[in-house]
């Protein structure tokens, strides 16, 4: 009986954390875009499609060739980490190119979504599927 209780307790402890759902991803994107429809193009997401180590994955989000005043904000979202948000960037008057690079964690193979919000309110998106061989220790 004691052993069974122990096994049950162990079962509770090793339950994986809830992954972000597609609904959570859509909600996170909506909170950034304000419900504006997403259009493909303009924004560019540079990331290796085969990732060796999910603990630190270099990514670059940019809007190449856009006039400086045209891009208001950039954001990056993920599909299957515990939380859908990765990064949100606002540019000020002193920023030059509309580009930001960082290193992120990926809990598993999944889709990354880069979104750019332009000054006229339109939102642009690029989605990239990445395969992760060594997952990050749950974010």
């Amino acid at each position, binding site marked *: 009986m004691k052993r069974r209780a122990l096994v049950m307790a162990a079962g509770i*402890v090793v339950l994986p954390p809830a992954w972000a759902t597609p609904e959570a991803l859509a909600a996170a994107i909506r909170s950034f875009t304000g419900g504006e429809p997403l259009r493909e193009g303009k924004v560019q997401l540079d990331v290796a499609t085969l990732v060796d180590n999910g603990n630190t994955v270099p990514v670059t989000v940019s809007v190449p060739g856009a006039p400086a005043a045209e891009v208001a904000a950039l954001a990056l979202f993920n599909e299957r980490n*515990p939380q859908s948000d*990765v*990064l949100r960037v606002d*540019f*000020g008057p002193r*920023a030059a190119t509309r*580009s930001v690079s960082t*290193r992120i*964690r990926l809990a598993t193979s999944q889709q990354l979504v880069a979104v750019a919000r332009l000054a006229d309110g339109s939102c642009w998106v690029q989605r990239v599927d990445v395969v992760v061989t060594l997952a990050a220790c749950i974010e």
Partner: protein
Amino acid sequence: MARTLITAPSSARRGEVITLRVLLQHPMESGFRVGADGQLLPRDIVRHFSCSYNGERVIAVELFPAIAANPYLEFSALALDSGTLDFVWEGDRGFRHSEQRTISVA
């Protein structure tokens, strides 16, 4: 006192696009990991980074737990006048760290 690594030019030509690279030593504990005792480790992340050039905003970044440990950012600024670059990180548990670099523009 957190350690930082900042790559910023000390001089530039007027109108030049300068690349800024910043790295902060920080564990970025996500709040989703379980410790050796089976309890969730409390979240401890850097939530916000901003850079300003002579008081004017270059970039403001909101960071989430999916950012890797020792958060690294690379971005660019337009060199228009000599002055200072201010870098500020803010996070959980009252974390705040700021750095300053001077730049001379000819």
